[in-house]
């Protein structure tokens, strides 16, 4: 139930200021959870975001969310973009809840999913449902079969790529269940990153100098499909991303052959998109229109919306 509700919320454009974008707009589930080809995504009013949209797939495997880890959990993350002025731009939680309260489908779903509360339509449950859905956005890959002992899961070229990957030191940060997403690392650990000014990473969050240029290490699952790469989305090819990582993070410049070899290994980290799981609900917009036709849309304000929902209790 939580997953179904979360899926509906994930696809719902009415959770943005002018009902123009949903979570799925910047984290397109049919495109490996990113905004393909865009360095940064554009918000409800077409303003560019500050950083590249990270993939939402396998986000549940990561120890923190966002590039700077400012949200500890998926639920904490879920409310961020909704209220971010340059993303979905909702003025505040009350506007989100006003819409939820105005929608008969949501009223029914929230009551079924979170029984026992007089008003289950609270932000805590909105974000909990989205987080429940996102927790299931997993893409097991051939790499997992290999780890479980299936030697044939990787081709000889991919195994050679794995050897280069390990020899280069990539696994110092990109290891574990998520092949990343489980530590913060300085971008430019060996050689200083060329752009030190535009985005100082976690420094902007913690205001501690030691966090300058530190970012969450991104997951490498599906990495070949989640470009453009890095926090600013400025790198347009996976080969260049591998080359720059080796140079700036490990101090080991790679030959073209080694770059290609690692890229081949990364291919083994790509899983299948769970098309059945991400099937969008069909009726969100219709039910919303039905609700607004009856005079209880999100523009009506919180009190009217709450009254509407309570009439059904």
């Amino acid at each position, binding site marked *: 139930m939580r997953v179904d509700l979360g899926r509906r919320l994930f696809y719902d454009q009415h959770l943005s200021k002018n009902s123009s974008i949903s979570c799925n707009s910047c984290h397109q589930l049919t495109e490996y959870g990113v905004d393909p080809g865009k360095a940064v995504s554009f918000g409800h009013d077409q303003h560019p975001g500050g950083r590249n949209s990270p993939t939402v797939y396998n986000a549940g495997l990561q120890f923190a969310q966002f590039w700077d880890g400012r949200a500890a959990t998926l639920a904490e993350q879920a409310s961020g973009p909704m209220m971010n002025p340059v993303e979905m731009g909702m003025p505040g939680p009350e506007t989100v809840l006003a819409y939820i309260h105005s929608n008969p489908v949501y009223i029914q779903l929230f009551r079924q999913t979170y029984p026992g509360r007089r008003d289950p339509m609270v932000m805590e449950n909105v974000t909990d449902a989205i987080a429940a859905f996102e927790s299931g956005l997993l893409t*097991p890959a051939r790499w*997992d079969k290999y780890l479980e002992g299936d030697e044939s899961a990787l081709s000889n070229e991919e195994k050679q790529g794995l050897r280069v990957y390990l020899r280069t*030191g990539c696994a110092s940060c990109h290891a*574990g269940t998520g092949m990343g997403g489980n530590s913060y690392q*300085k971008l430019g650990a060996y050689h200083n990153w060329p752009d030190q000014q535009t985005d100082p990473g976690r420094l902007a969050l913690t205001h501690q100098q030691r966090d300058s240029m530190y970012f969450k290490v991104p997951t490498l699952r599906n990495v070949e499909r989640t470009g453009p790469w890095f926090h600013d989305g400025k790198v347009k090819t996976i080969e260049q991303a591998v080359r720059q990582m080796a140079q700036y993070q490990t101090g080991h410049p790679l030959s073209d052959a080694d770059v290609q070899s690692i890229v081949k290994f990364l291919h083994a980290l790509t899983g299948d998109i769970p098309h059945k799981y991400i099937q969008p609900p069909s009726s969100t917009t219709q039910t919303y229109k039905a609700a607004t036709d009856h005079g209880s849309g999100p523009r009506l304000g919180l009190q009217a919306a709450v009254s509407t929902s309570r009439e059904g209790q």
Partner: protein
Amino acid sequence: MRRIIWITGTLVIAIFLAMQLHRPNYDLSPIDTAATFDASFHPDQQISKTLHQSCYSCHSAQGKIPWYGNVWPTSQLMQNDVRRGRARLDFSNWSNLSPEMSRIRLQNACSMMRESKMPLWYYRPMHPGTAPKAEDVAAFCNWVKALPSGQDVASLR
């Protein structure tokens, strides 16, 4: 012939002296003690001593740089090793790791010491007494093994 030797020698000395102007940067800025490995785990004395003695020179901001670490060309080599070492494992900056990554790095440290890949072969003769004893490595590896396990890959299924 003597003239050539004299000119060559003078050039070598001049280059050597000129290269001393390039000062190494070991980034030994003050650490946040709350963010260190010791603060995260409070390991017992044997383990703490092993790590401090064998690893901290290159894998922390708490290492002591010997005098020749400020003399080129050894300064360049040491700086490269310390940078590379701290990029892979930094005991001074442990709070940046999840419990899973923390365990992975410690397991790697165990493997490297058990296989005598660390400390590096050329580090040992320059730093007598820093190579850990077998019983110290065993104690460290047993301690790592006893750490709570992280997420299992099977959770993806």
